[in-house]
């Protein structure tokens, strides 16, 4: 492995000033489950690793009934799903947290690291999109926000400037009659990269039949995770029956533009996009009804 320096700053400002000095030669370390492997395999060239896990803002996990969820970029999956209240309020995120890697990975890997790695197949990103998460980004010029669906710009690429870092995610409190789900297809039952991933959320009218608001997102079917607005459009204001779900699934298939690689063929991935959309919506509805 190439040589690099390691620093573990205790404050956000310290981290920002390190990034200012090193720019693209520096990288924030969260769980390290992608970053360390990439550096080791010569897929990323660095001079400095900045460990984010000593910075309070990056490790915050809190919920407020007014402002909703604050999820620090470096919070490991395990802290999310072991928080009984938060994990119940954001079921799609909880699904993703429980799916990423195995136990050892979940004890290290974070939503923030997963997003900044910007893999098209990342498990947490479609879930974050389904939950309408917004990123808080810090840089020398202060902070700004970006919706998760606008964060990734290509495989391994995103909107973060060389001197910026992701601080946290912010998600509004779930509305009434809300349900969400994330699922993916993998050939094994764990320890795989998604062939296709799908997140969905539904806010139902009080009749629990009519869709008030819907979001459908897909992973591993395009250069970036997708928010499939066309699928939501097939659902919103309509009764959520088999026909509507099938239309949404068709919209998801139409939106998918995957490649063929070792994890699946183009044809198979398009097929799965439809299957998973249907299953994600059905489970989301079930959860909306339970709530």
């Amino acid at each position, binding site marked *: 492995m190439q040589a690099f320096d390691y620093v573990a700053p205790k404050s956000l400002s310290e981290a920002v000033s390190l990034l200012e000095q090193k720019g693209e030669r520096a990288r924030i370390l969260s769980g390290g489950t992608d970053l360390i492997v990439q550096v080791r395999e010569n897929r990323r060239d660095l001079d400095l690793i900045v460990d984010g896990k000593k910075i309070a803002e990056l490790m915050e996990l809190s919920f407020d009934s007014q402002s909703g969820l604050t999820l620090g970029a470096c919070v490991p999956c395990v802290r999310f799903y072991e928080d009984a209240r938060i994990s119940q309020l954001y079921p799609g995120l909880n699904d993703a947290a429980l799916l990423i890697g195995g136990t050892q990975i979940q004890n290290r890997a974070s939503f923030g690291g997963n997003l900044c790695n910007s893999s098209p197949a990342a498990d947490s990103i479609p879930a974050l999109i389904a939950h309408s998460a917004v990123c808080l980004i810090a840089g020398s010029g202060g902070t700004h926000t970006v919706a998760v669906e606008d964060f990734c710009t290509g495989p391994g690429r995103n909107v973060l400037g060389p001197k910026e870092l992701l601080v946290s995610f912010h998600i509004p409190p779930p509305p009434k009659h809300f349900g969400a789900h994330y699922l993916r*297809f993998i*050939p*094994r039952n*764990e320890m*795989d990269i998604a062939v296709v991933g799908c997140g969905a959320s539904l806010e139902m009218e009080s009749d629990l039949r009519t869709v008030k608001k819907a979001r459908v997102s897909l992973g591993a079917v395009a250069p970036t995770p997708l928010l499939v607005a066309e699928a939501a459009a097939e659902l919103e204001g309509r009764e959520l029956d088999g026909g509507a779900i099938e239309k949404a699934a068709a919209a998801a298939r139409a939106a998918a533009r995957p490649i063929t690689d070792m994890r699946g063929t183009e044809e*198979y991935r398009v097929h799965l996009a439809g*299957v998973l959309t249907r299953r994600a919506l059905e489970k989301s509805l079930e959860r909306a009804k339970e709530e």
Partner: protein
Amino acid sequence: MNPTQTMDPAKTEVEQKYKVIGTRPIRHDGVDKVTGRAVYGADVQLPGMLHGKVLRSPHAHARVKSVNTEKAEALYGVKAVMTAADFPDAGSRTANLGELGEVPLKPMCDNVMASDKVVYHGHAVAAVAATSPHIAEEALKLIEVEYEVLPPVMDVLKAMEEDSPLLHDDLYTDELGEKSSKPSNVASHSRHVLGDINQGFAAADHILEREYRCATVHQGYIEPHAATAMWNPDGYLTMWVTTQGAFTVRTSVHQILEIPVSKLKVIPTEIGGGFGGKIPVYGEPVAAVLSRKARRPVKVVMDRTEVFQATGPTSGSYVKLKMGVTNEGRITAAETMLAYEAGGYPGSVVSLGGICMFAPYNVENLTIDMYDVVVNKPKTAAYRAPGAPNSEFAAECMIDEFCEILDMDPMEFRLKNGAKEGDIQCHGIPHPRIGCLETTEAARDCEHYQTPLEGPNRGRGVASGYWVNAGLTSSVTARLNGDGTVTLQEGSTDIGGTRTSIAMQLAEVLGIPVEDVVPSVADTDSVGYTEVTGGSRVTFATGWAAYNAGQSIRSQLIEQAAAIWKVDKDQVSLADGVIATTNGDSKSISIKELAADLSQKGIDIGSRETVTPQNHGGAYATHIVDVEVDPDTGKVTILRYTAVQDAGRAIHPSYVEGQMQGGVVQGIGWALNEEYYYNEDGHLMNSSFLDYRMPTSLDLPMIETIIVEVPNPGHPYGVRGVGEVPIVPPQAAVSNAIARAVGTRLGDLPMSPQRVVKALSAKS
């Protein structure tokens, strides 16, 4: 969870007959292995030791024009750099592979490090020794290699085409001594014929003809290859190696480096899995040369990517099969063509595939054509029952298809056609006493098979399997200690508890507790020649050597006691660890007491035994699997699995069960998800445990086992090898179960979810 069971009609007799055999003692090396103290290949640490790393080809097929190592040599911390030019010229020298005869040495050398040509992605071209592994890696980046890239040949059938690019200009097809007129990727063609194939097909009521393919799969041992070499200035080379055969490493390194065997000691470390893949040498000669050049010990440890790119795998294969059966379900004829990928150099296991393919059945009219074909993939190595799963998958799938056509129970079909003692095998040799029918009967009668499977998209599959097993040479040295315990040095590296299964056989002879035998795996200077841990042979052959050692010690003790008591040795016996007279004068002495006495007198009791037994008998298995198929995603879930197998005699039943369960799970991985994925340039794309998908604990149910014991008359305790045959039936059993679940037959492995979906959509 379902309990494991042992079905043995002769169990009560066995229990009376044996004190140690059939029990489940804790293995002797167990504490070392559960405490992290056992020393595996990469755990070796020597004073002043350097770390070696290997530069590998980014191309699947290329001529090596030049290698410039100057910059690497200049890097701070680098102590030696080597290329193939540092090996003695292989020229026309040959390597003696024992029963396989003499083979040219050059391909073996070139596979360790390419001289003029790289023939697979990941092929070694140079190596560096440095003070840290990181510096060695940095130095690799400084080595400049100029390649002339050539078109890769990645598929066995494409490689056989007339106009295919050639891997080796000097390779001609050998047909038992007759060479082809022009160079070819087909290294050899061989054939077995029995009876009259045309008459056989004429007698058939149903004939099927199908093609079957197996992807390239890897052994997948968790411990990467590791070798440490210390070459002293006096010319003596000591190596610490994780290997299935210390003597095989000694021979290979001796041949490649032309170092005398007498100056080469191989110390086998603990080995973290092998399954056939740790028989060839890779980093061993490299570590040795680096050590000689750097004048320091050098350790070469592969990473996982290197393991996938450059070691193992087993052959990808194409099988064309035509069979005929009568309306009564009797096989009348089988005609098959097997083409196996050898990898970059000749030498696949296609001949074993041929021998095993129909061995569970008595087929009188048979033609088997076997082709060994080079492609731009790593040189293949043995993998658990090497060659057998590829061919038997085809036969077992087709038999199930016949059963469906005939509406015949698959167990009934197997019992009707099953092989038995005296039936002629494809190569003309009759079967010895085998447990084929007994195994099938036990499978038919077991609770799993007798319980109906219900539910949509569910199906039950059955398949049988055969593996030849092996005898070969094994040695032990046993010595009685003054406290009555026995120190047992044996030559077989222990991959799965064989120290104990060997020691149990010695303990049984002497009637002492197995805890009183202290087994260890010896280095090549400390025990007689011993062939590899492979071919399911260790408990059979090395166990036999231990049995002989026990018999020898027993005779010596009897003689010594007879001398003390001044009686004829015929009037002295040994049982349950006690030596006693049989002439009625009631003299007796325990082994412990006698050992103490003899030790006091300076009398050494011990034995050195080497055996090369042949009557290893074959191993049979029949497996039953229940699956559920998700028709939307094509994913196959294993609901229940039972493996039934003839073990001859289960010396340590827990480890027999373990072999069965482990083999089954490797077979399930092979069936469902494992495959080498190459891109069009011949680059291996999934050389990690993330994307080479071996089963995890979450993908499986408990694996139920039924041990059948049809003692092998060729072994003093009736042992048959057990390790390999359990990997043979699962692929076909799963395919047959999928067919019964959703009505579509898959003949290409792996039966990955996307293949299942594709087959289902083709059907509808």
